């Protein structure tokens, strides 16, 4: 849990500074600006840009943090002709098939967001693995929170 919070915090800080260099001391509920200036150090940013966004239990709406991460991906993808696979996942709790749908809804939310940011929808492929491929194998909230995710795969 703590590890994940730190990781997400760091990722967010990197993404935000990369976008507009805004003060990132308060990252709660902050909407990342959509009119970012061009990145200064794109190589560093790309290396540290998270390819994973996380979700709350039984939810498929994007968090503010997720939107910030995805904005950076949208910038990378706009006008590029690169195919991207959006892989949706769920934690192990609940019905296995329902979790397939949850994973797909999550991946669809990411796709829809990227499309509204100008990414060509036909370059985005959505697939859900439900709870079949957990990132962490424990049966506790720390693991579950890492498993409710969408992976952006280039």
């Amino acid at each position, binding site marked *: 849990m703590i590890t994940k919070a730190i990781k997400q915090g760091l990722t967010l800080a990197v993404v935000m500074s990369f976008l507009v260099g805004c003060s990132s001391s308060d990252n709660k509920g902050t909407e990342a600006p959509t009119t970012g200036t061009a990145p200064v150090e794109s190589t560093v940013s790309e290396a540290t840009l998270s390819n994973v966004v996380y979700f709350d239990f039984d939810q498929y709406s994007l968090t503010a943090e997720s939107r910030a991460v995805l904005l950076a991906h949208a910038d990378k993808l706009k006008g590029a002709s690169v195919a991207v696979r959006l892989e949706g996942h769920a934690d192990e709790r*609940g*019905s296995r098939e329902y979790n397939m749908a949850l994973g797909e809804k999550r991946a669809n939310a990411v796709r829809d967001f990227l499309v509204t940011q100008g990414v060509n929808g036909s370059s985005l492929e959505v697939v859900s693995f439900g709870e*079949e491929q957990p990132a962490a194998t424990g049966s506790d909230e720390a693991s579950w929170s890492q498993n409710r995710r969408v992976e952006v795969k280039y």
Partner: protein
Amino acid sequence: MRYIISAFLLVFAISANAQNIVFVTKGVDNPTKIAVVPFGWAGARLPGDIAKIVGNDLEFSGQFEATKPERMLSFPRSEAEVHYRDWKALGAEYLLIGSITQQAGRYYASYELFDVVQQKRVFAKLTVDGTEAQLRDMAHHISDKVYETITGIRGIFSTKLIYVEAFKQPQKYRLMLSDIDGFRPRMLLESRYPVLSPVWSPNGQRVAYVSFEADNKPAIYIQDIATSRRQQMTNFRGLNGAPSWSPDGQKLAMALSKDGNPEIYVMNVLTRQLTRVTNHFAIDHEPSWAADGASLFFTSDRGGKPQIYQVNLATMQQERVTFDGDYNARARVSPDGKSLVMLNKRPGTTHHIAAQDIKSGNLRILSETNLDESPTIAPNGAMLMYATRSGGKGVLAAVSLDARVKILQPPKQGDVREPAWSPFFN
């Protein structure tokens, strides 16, 4: 009996014989006590101990307690050798005796049942026969006969189980077929990609399931169990999930997201003609046919949380069915059509298996373990099995529908999950 044996001959010819002991962790308050005397046999040690298998079967039902052979005072092989006082002294209410003979490569098991309390024979000597590989089938047949004679309920010991066994590092999925006690596991499919949601066809000859084997994306397949011949039924963009056979075996209900969102569809198995059933921006998933084939139960989060809904296939009228709990999903209908068994969670608790009376809406929690899922009901409606976790592994558990019996199968190599209980085979 002959019919069943021939249907499964091919199946068991190549089966491994893993020792998978079932143990009862909690029985009914007052199980019927039965003594199953080791069957008479003059030859060398047989690969299957019929009396032991019958005793285990009857205990598996949760309704019986078998007397241990070590406690027995005599080992009668015929009615003349039965002394009722020996069995009364042990508290046995019923006594099963039998003997095995061999002729031209076939085994013949004869058996007789006695009522110890009334001191009379319940049924005259019956005989069942088979090859050496069918000794377990013969034992399960005897269990069915004894169970039905005493309880009045048809026995399920000759039915089968299909389940998914998953392995990590390297990731591997197997679709497995076994006896309901877990013995004689046989692999139906192995894949590096996810396999899930197996369901039996109503005639017990085919299984439908979801496999990610093609391009690491989900598709629905139908496989003939005896021949292993397969057909890929769907190849749509997005979700292809949760197949469910109609009671007449001619249609498959399923969830597809080809139109952008998980919705319920019905496919004609022969023509593959597809009919869309739901149209809602929420998740509609996990269809399951009502016993009369006129409606489908399904999971939807259109009310904010997953709940079970019912759609009438003639009018397409839809209504919510579950109201107890903040999570109800993956319903299965009992063979008599009167109950739903599903995954239920109440606020602040974990997921459990629950049964709901369809008419009254009354819901009962059936399982006490953690991370319970995938309930499947025995064709006689008296038991159900589900997947849970024990010692960090996926295992199967069984429970009687009166919620008094809990039986766990200890872990095999991988994580065992998604049990599907077969129908009766004849």
